[in-house]
């Protein structure tokens, strides 16, 4: 397997792909947004329960390749407990990593995605979940409701 491919499919990515964290709908969500990758038809929904300015709970749902699934999964673990501006700042780091391949030391978890930069067509896969999360943060709060409206 080539160095590029090994870089792309790091162990942490494979792990998140096989055992996605925070996957599925969030019954208590008060924010939700949906992202599409029109190029390939991949989809990702992100559910948030905001507690004031902070993300108290987060989950994602959808379908896509290993990169997009692992990225969404890792994103949920990173975003939990953070505020909107904090998630925004994280995304900026993440975007730099997947487009340049350079990962600063302090955000080592996201660094697993540095290999994406050798596969420009996959950048959209890696950012799909993040885009949905940022959209959800910007979205209007859901009316208090039961789970069913999310179907």
């Amino acid at each position, binding site marked *: *397997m*080539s160095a*590029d*491919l090994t870089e*792309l*499919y790091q162990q942490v990515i*494979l792990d998140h792909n096989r055992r996605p964290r925070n996957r599925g709908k969030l019954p208590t969500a008060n924010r939700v947004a949906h992202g599409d990758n029109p*190029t*390939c*038809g*991949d*989809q990702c929904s992100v559910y948030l329960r905001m507690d004031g300015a902070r993300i108290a709970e987060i989950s994602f749902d959808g*379908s*896509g*390749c*290993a*990169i997009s*699934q692992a990225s969404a999964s890792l994103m949920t673990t990173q975003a939990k407990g953070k505020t909107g501006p904090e998630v925004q700042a994280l995304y900026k780091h993440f975007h730099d990593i997947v487009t340049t391949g350079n990962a600063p030391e302090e955000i080592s978890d996201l660094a697993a995605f540095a290999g994406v930069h050798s*596969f420009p067509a*996959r950048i959209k*896969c890696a950012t799909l979940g993040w885009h949905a999360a940022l959209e959800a943060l910007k979205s209007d709060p859901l009316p208090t409701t039961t789970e069913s409206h999310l179907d």
Partner: protein
Amino acid sequence: MPSWKNVRADFPILHQQVHGKPLVYLDNGATAQKPRAVIDALVHYYERDNSNVHRGLHALSMRATDAYEGARARIAKFINAADPAEIIFTRGTTESINLVARSWGQAHLKPGDVVLTTEIEHHSNLVPWQQAARASGATLKYLPVLGADGEGGLDLAALDQLLTPQVKLFAFTHISNTLGTIIPAAEFCRRARAVGAVTVIDAAQSIGHTPLDVQALGADFVAFSGHKMCGPTGIGVLYGRRALLDKLAPDETGGGMVVNVTYEGATWKPTPERFEAGTPNVADAIALGVACDYLDALGREHIAAHDAVLARVAMEKLSTLPGIRIIGPRVGAERSGLVSFAFADVHAHDIVTFADEDGVALRGGHHCNQPLMRKFGLTSTTRASFYLYNTEEEIDRLVAALRRTLTFFVGT
């Protein structure tokens, strides 16, 4: 003269390495590669004859016009059209279908009418009809595909129910770009004609792969793209029966398609000029004519046979992969030279990326077939699509690449 013996030598692009491996190009459903003769035709045109057509009386312009109209006649012969004026040059299948959907649709569709299509259409033969139906108030109906993986083909029994006299137009694909299913197009045309419906055949996947005779099919309109039949990008054809074209209003307007223009209005030339506003894609039309020569020299019936062998071999070898789900006709059934498949645990994009590492070019995604994918509970498949230059050894390379990918992701 091309010959089957060294067909691969005719295609310069095939002789390259991708990631250090010889390229195995199995993305022919998306676009075909170009033989040297087609590339040379472009060079020759731009080096010797380039000029605007139709309105010129100098030597270059006459040569360009002759070559352009010669290409039209060549393509008419290629599909056995009764008259070169039935060949309208467009950018490709999509534009050809849009032209019919707009010009014919605007003139003929009204509320209460039905446009019939099928569940297996490419977005390009689906969305334009949704738009035409919406604009006119007509209803769009779909002929269902049978089987959990579309293996049963289109539902011929349902066709009897659906083909009512309300159906004004029936648009269907000749070969499915996702399933590989070959549609009984002549029968569909016959049954459509019986209720007075106009037929539109999307021949994007069949034109370069099998003999196609528009008169034998009994088709009213046939749309195809040059780039899928060894021709250049940016050129395609709308075939229309003369009697229909003669009554059709133009779609785009401008220079070259008018007889008389005043500040108050304009009158139109007859077909084909009426449908070719502006400077046409002269060079690519001419090169498309050369692609016809190339394919006919090999023989389209031989290409179809070659494709069929590769499809059979691919079906057999792919079926041995653990967990594979092949959509479309089952092993042993007739299918065109393409195979779409999915694995529960490995996404198409990861497969395509891994195969690319092995030099194997595949396509992964919804193949412009989202509603069909959704019907099958899929979001994407991986597709290997073959053409005249592919070999059985290349299928072995494909299978090996898939095995390696499966091992990596699933560990089997």
